[in-house]
């Protein structure tokens, strides 16, 4: 049993100089057989294992991670959480997640630092204004909080934004979702890992999946760098590497993997207490608790698994940032990095069964899946345990590319992250 984290635990452990804290999760060797195996120890994979154990009573399960948990996009993203998506199916999916975020620290007994500081989406031209107003209405019809701010209200809510009409892409208004915000990415992975581990889930790091063994149309097990593991159910949650794993099972997916970058500045005093996104100029910014500005950019156009992007992308983003926030002009940037994001043609995810019995995919989250982590894990666990989708992820099946029933968030919601 895990010891509870609390103020008393903190005091007690301070007496022994914090040297005797219990391990947050074990470091087991893989067993030869599991009831289900999750490939990928990012937030989504760990959340899936957590809900499989908690809500579906599956305890003999493992999460296999080729590196360290949370070292993929979970630990590389800019942590924006919101649910103001246009279409009903997406609104249902992302708001399901947002509702879980609201109590997640308590549920996991782990401080994930969820901060509902609001997210703004700026409009810079007439088309943006129309689209974002439409989205505001659509959100409200779906019971999601969303407000439209005119330019004066934008200036009032976030004074450092340059609202001059004379800049190249003037600000013409903004949406605001007050329930939206940020969370600490690592803590989400660690909190779910600790929770899953305490229910008996084996979290196995440094274990790369190399092959999937099929017997006709069903799964027999998987080849890993730590040997063969027998299992009948495999849930793949490998983000940018989903196609690589699909290929091992002889499948193709509607995905392209591309580099996406972010960067942080040197830490400064609190200056921006919300998240501001701007899709037209492709730049967004928030401030971490350490004081760094967290700045996100766009993807490169070509497929690459290198986890680095090109300099032009960063340059373009910083130009936009400087025009919108002249006050940042003398800040120095500290770090820059990239992740490999898996993008579906309609910019919506897959949480789906496949043509192979017992093989499930949760991928295609592309540039914006961190916000969905708890909901995605919850719904994917349901899909794996019941062998059928939950009502909230039924629309996100792979057959939508055959039927044409796409959930087109690309053009519709000005969706970035």
């Amino acid at each position, binding site marked *: 049993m895990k010891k509870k984290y609390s103020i008393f635990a903190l005091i007690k452990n301070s007496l022994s100089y914090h040297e005797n804290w219990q391990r947050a999760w074990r470091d087991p060797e893989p067993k030869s057989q599991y009831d289900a195996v999750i490939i990928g120890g990012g937030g989504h994979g760990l959340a899936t294992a957590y809900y499989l154990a908690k809500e579906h009573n599956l305890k003999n399960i493992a999460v296999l991670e080729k590196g360290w948990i949370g070292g993929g996009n979970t630990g590389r993203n800019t942590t924006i959480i919101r649910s103001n998506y246009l279409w009903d199916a997406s609104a249902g999916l992302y708001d399901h997640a947002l509702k879980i975020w609201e109590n997640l620290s308590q549920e996991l007994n782990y401080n994930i630092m969820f901060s509902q500081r609001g997210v703004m989406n700026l409009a810079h031209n007439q088309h943006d204004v129309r689209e974002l107003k439409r989205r505001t209405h659509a959100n409200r019809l779906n019971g999601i909080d969303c407000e439209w701010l005119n330019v004066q209200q934008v200036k009032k809510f976030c004074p450092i934004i340059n609202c001059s009409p004379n800049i190249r892409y003037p600000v013409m208004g903004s949406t605001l979702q007050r329930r939206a915000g940020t969370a600490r990415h690592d803590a989400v992975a660690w909190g779910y890992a600790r929770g899953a581990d305490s229910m008996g889930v084996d979290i196995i790091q440094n274990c790369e999946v190399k092959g999937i063994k099929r017997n006709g149309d069903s799964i027999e097990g998987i080849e890993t760098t730590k040997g063969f593991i027998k299992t009948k159910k495999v849930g793949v949650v490998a983000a940018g*590497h989903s*196609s*690589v794993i699909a*290929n091992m099972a002889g499948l*193709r*997916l*509607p*995905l*392209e*993997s591309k580099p996406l970058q972010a960067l942080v500045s040197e830490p400064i005093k609190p200056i921006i207490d919300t998240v501001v996104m701007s899709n037209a100029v492709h730049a967004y910014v928030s401030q971490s608790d350490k004081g760094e500005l967290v700045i996100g950019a766009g993807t490169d*156009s*070509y*497929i*690459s*698994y*290198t986890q680095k992007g*090109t*300099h*032009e992308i960063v340059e373009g983003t910083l130009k936009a940032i400087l025009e919108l926030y002249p006050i940042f002009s003398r800040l120095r940037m500290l770090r820059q990095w990239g992740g490999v994001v898996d993008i579906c*043609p309609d910019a919506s995810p897959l949480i789906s069964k496949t043509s192979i019995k017992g093989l499930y995919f949760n991928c295609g989250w592309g540039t914006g899946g961190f916000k969905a982590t708890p909901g995605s894990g919850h719904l994917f666990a349901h899909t794996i345990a019941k062998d059928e989708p939950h009502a909230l992820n039924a629309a996100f099946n792979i057959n939508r*590319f*055959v*039927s*044409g029933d796409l959930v087109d968030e690309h053009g519709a919601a000005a969706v970035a992250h």
Partner: protein
Amino acid sequence: MFIIKCPYCGERDHSEFSYGGEAHLVRPKQPTELSDDQWAEYLFMRKNIKGLQYERWNHSHGCRRWFNMARDTSNDKIHSVYKIGEKANK
């Protein structure tokens, strides 16, 4: 990042070029006879290879011509460029 050698103009910075996706995808000859599954395969399903990939590029800020490239997507190393209609030489 990387320098691309346009088969018509020679070496240029990659920012002059646009990516055109997986190469050698052939549009089905009898589109009216295709099932929905076959359309989905052609339109949406991709190899999304980690490793050597054959892909199309356009020299959009140069001669504006299309050509093909063999590139390793795991390290962005370009193995060869070749004209449309030519075969890739590895």
